[in-house]
């Protein structure tokens, strides 16, 4: 037992993050009889999972009986440009149907087919209609269902509690963490036999993003500091359709479901430009003409897929090119048009949140007018390197699941594969942690020197009278990353970013915070910035090293995909374990795909 000078709690399994992955992990660990604690920096039920709109991908075959896990596996690997951890893609495709049915057993209410099964909708990169959904608020349904299950089990949830750093025991195993309470600013320590990281993404380091204040990459950074590795950090998904006007909502997500349900993209000349951007990899399965594409919506055997439903990386790049060529809207976007293609009743029933979002925030009626949209930073494919079956990281005692884990999505994630990722690997992380504890390797007591280091780092900004405001540093960081490591990258800009990130490190060391410790948003931001900087550094290092274009990483100076770079991930580790320690980058070979799975990928070419 740890003796801590702060409020202290002990658990078997400690879960950091209360989104879909964290909650599903908690249910699994709890059902295995373990004592589980969940820490979240927001209130329960507010995690970023609620922002997921379109659906959860699972090859249940309810709409197209031809669908099965093998097709889903193939789609995921091709969408990820073969940079995926194949074993994760295999487990994900096999297990996601059971995870969806399980949600119904816990009270979820999905939209139905005529014969009463779960309805599935079309999305980019999925060969068949595969996304179980509830209108365009599927993420809310998922988090509420898991939240209500967790509450019914009586699991301890620490809300508005911000974790600063993982803490080891004397043997170097991960043994818990140190955190602080938002409401009064007091520190608290947690001891645990195993820790599961489920903190989500890191989009907050870019200027235009779908992410909330929470997406600061805490879990990525804390795992790296604690001895885990990060992979594929250069692979960032810019969602093709974010709002662009008014400026105050720029970046806000517009669901891919708009395109799945018949919406098309047009440039300022009114042309459906996506037909000009079909890459060879997807040529055989994509329609050549508008007539053919339009037939596909009603019957997938009557025509090939519309090019608007190519994977997100392709669509985002195409929009970017159109705007650069001067064929964009006055606010720098393109038009997403469903109004001219579907009835107002259909649009309001299938896309109620989008209807309200545009009506209330932009004064646009999407049943009558086209939406102005453009790419927005949405998701990081990269994350903590994990062992596929158990979600174990390279740091003993630490597991990771959901967006903060890497590997499943390779270089680009398909829409709908995120929610299924959360429940498939959330459950596996809970099981992995339980098995680790059963094997008797679990950690003992917290190294209090590490706790005191984190506390001092957190409090230092109060002692600097004339330092810089954390808000200014964050704003400049977002501008810099948007400009230098955005959707299209080039060596000179990335190199400049790497130099600038060192300057930002110095600025963070001289931050100053005003006010007290109780619910102080400026102080909270100051504690976010070290993680944000660590993550940005790994993104820039991955981006400079990957001298090719693949998925969510596009180099202007290396526009082609290079087979050499398709054999390994760039992995990063920390040399020193502090937030300002140097980061070492190396090549980490991809797992060898067994022949029977390789056949699934080749057969479908």
């Amino acid at each position, binding site marked *: 037992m740890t003796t801590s000078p702060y409020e202290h709690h002990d658990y078997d399994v400690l879960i950091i993050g209360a989104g879909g992955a964290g909650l599903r992990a908690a*249910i699994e660990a709890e059902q295995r009889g373990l004592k589980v604690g969940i820490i979240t920096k927001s209130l329960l039920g507010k995690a970023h999972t609620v922002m997921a709109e379109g659906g959860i991908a699972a090859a249940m075959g309810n709409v197209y009986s031809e669908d099965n896990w093998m097709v889903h596996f193939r789609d995921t690997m091709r969408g990820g440009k073969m940079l995926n951890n194949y074993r994760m893609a295999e487990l994900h495709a096999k297990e996601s149907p059971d995870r969806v049915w399980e949600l*119904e057993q816990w009270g979820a209410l999905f939209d139905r087919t005529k014969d009463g099964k779960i309805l599935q909708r079309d999305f980019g990169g999925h060969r068949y209609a595969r996304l179980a959904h509830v209108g365009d608020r599927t993420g809310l349904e998922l988090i*509420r269902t898991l939240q209500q299950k967790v509450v019914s089990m009586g699991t301890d949830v620490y809300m508005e509690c911000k974790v600063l750093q993982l803490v080891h025991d004397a043997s170097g195993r991960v043994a818990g963490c140190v955190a602080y309470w938002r409401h009064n600013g007091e520190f608290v320590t947690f001891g645990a036999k195993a820790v599961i990281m489920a903190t989500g993404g890191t989009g907050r380091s870019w200027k235009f993003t779908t992410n909330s204040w929470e997406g600061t990459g805490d879990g990525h950074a804390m795992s790296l500091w604690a001895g885990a590795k990060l992979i594929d950090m250069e692979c960032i998904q810019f969602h093709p359709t974010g709002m662009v006007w008014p400026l105050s909502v720029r970046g806000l997500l517009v669901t891919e479901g708009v395109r799945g349900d018949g919406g098309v993209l047009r440039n300022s000349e009114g042309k459906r430009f996506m037909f000009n951007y079909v890459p060879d990899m997807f040529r055989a399965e994509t329609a050549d003409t508008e007539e053919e594409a339009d037939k596909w919506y009603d019957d997938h055997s009557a025509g090939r897929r519309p090019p608007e439903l190519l994977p997100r990386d392709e669509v985002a790049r195409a929009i970017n090119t159109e705007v650069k060529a001067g064929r964009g809207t006055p606010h720098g976007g393109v038009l997403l048009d469903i109004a001219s293609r579907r009835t107002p009743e259909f649009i309001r029933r299938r896309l109620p949140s989008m209807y309200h*979002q545009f009506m209330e925030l932009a004064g646009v009626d999407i049943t009558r007018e086209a939406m102005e949209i453009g790419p927005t930073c949405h998701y990081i494919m990269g994350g903590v390197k994990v062992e596929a079956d158990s979600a174990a990281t390279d740091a003993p005692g630490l597991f990771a699941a959901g967006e903060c884990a890497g590997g499943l999505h390779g270089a680009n994630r398909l829409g709908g594969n995120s929610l299924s990722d959360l429940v498939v690997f959330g459950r596996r992380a809970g099981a992995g942690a339980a098995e680790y504890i059963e094997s008797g390797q679990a950690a003992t007591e917290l190294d209090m020197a590490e706790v005191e280091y984190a506390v001092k780092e957190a409090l230092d900004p109060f002692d600097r009278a004339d330092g810089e405001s954390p808000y200014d540093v964050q704003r400049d960081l977002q501008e810099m990353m948007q400009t230098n490591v955005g959707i299209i990258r080039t060596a000179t800009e990335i190199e400049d970013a790497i130099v600038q990130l060192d300057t930002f490190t110095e600025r963070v060391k001289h931050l100053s915070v005003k006010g007290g410790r109780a619910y102080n948003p400026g102080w909270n931001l100051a504690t976010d910035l070290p993680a944000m900087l660590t993550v940005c550094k790994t993104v820039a290092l991955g981006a400079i090293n990957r001298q090719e274009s693949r998925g969510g990483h596009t180099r202007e100076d290396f526009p082609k995909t290079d087979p050499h770079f398709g054999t390994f991930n760039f992995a990063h580790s920390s040399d020193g374990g502090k937030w300002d320690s140097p980061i070492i980058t190396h090549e980490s070979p991809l797992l060898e795909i067994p022949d029977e799975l390789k056949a699934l990928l080749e057969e479908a070419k």
Partner: protein
Amino acid sequence: MTDVTMRIWRGDASGGEFKDYTIEPNEGEVVLDIIHRLQATQTPDLACRWNCKAGKCGSCSAEVNGRPRLMCMTRMQDLPEGPVTVTPMKTFPIIRDLVTDVSFNFIMAAKVPAFLPPPMPEGGYRMFQKDVERGQEFRKCIECFLCQDVCHVIRDHEENKEHYAGPRFFIRYAELEMHPLDTNDRRDLVHEEMGLGYCNITKCCTEVCPEHIHITDNAIIPLKERVVDADYDPIAWLGRKIRRKPKKSASEAAVQPAP
């Protein structure tokens, strides 16, 4: 646009006061944008709770010009001219500035007896769209707690919080009651312990719901009818007396084996 005076309540549990800030709104900005710009430029420790800034998470609830609203969905240009007052939700204890302690709602959530379906048949349950739509309306709830904030049963009577679940949880009970698969009967509980009878259907909750859920008409009134049916229908009453199953508590229901 011209400068606007933002009159914001600053303080904590021990007390507080309004403070005025002057700022020029940009086109399309919502109240939450203004709060964020004040934090970045004038008052870095101004406390407010927010997450998605898209009306989907229900975190940034407050009272704008006295009306319970989501700050992220309230456009500055839609407010009348003159100073804009922003105050924390009145029904809940203050933590700091615009942030309140909403734990009342989490206590009520923990009292809801769990969903209890029959075992799932091979290939999944069959339910029909028209049957799930009733529950889906209530599951749109983003838990902003504005309905709880506006409900006079607890807004003006702290003592009622012990035996009144509030509109947010009445729609939760209604959702479970109308769920095609649920087998757990909560009608006595919602009547006897959750205070459904205190609601005198003034519809204030429906008016402030940012998700436009028909809380009163589609949830509370039907729930009241079902409770009455359970109480006064002599055949149903007798039937329940004879083979009355105790309702499953949350923790009992939770020990079902993992599917």
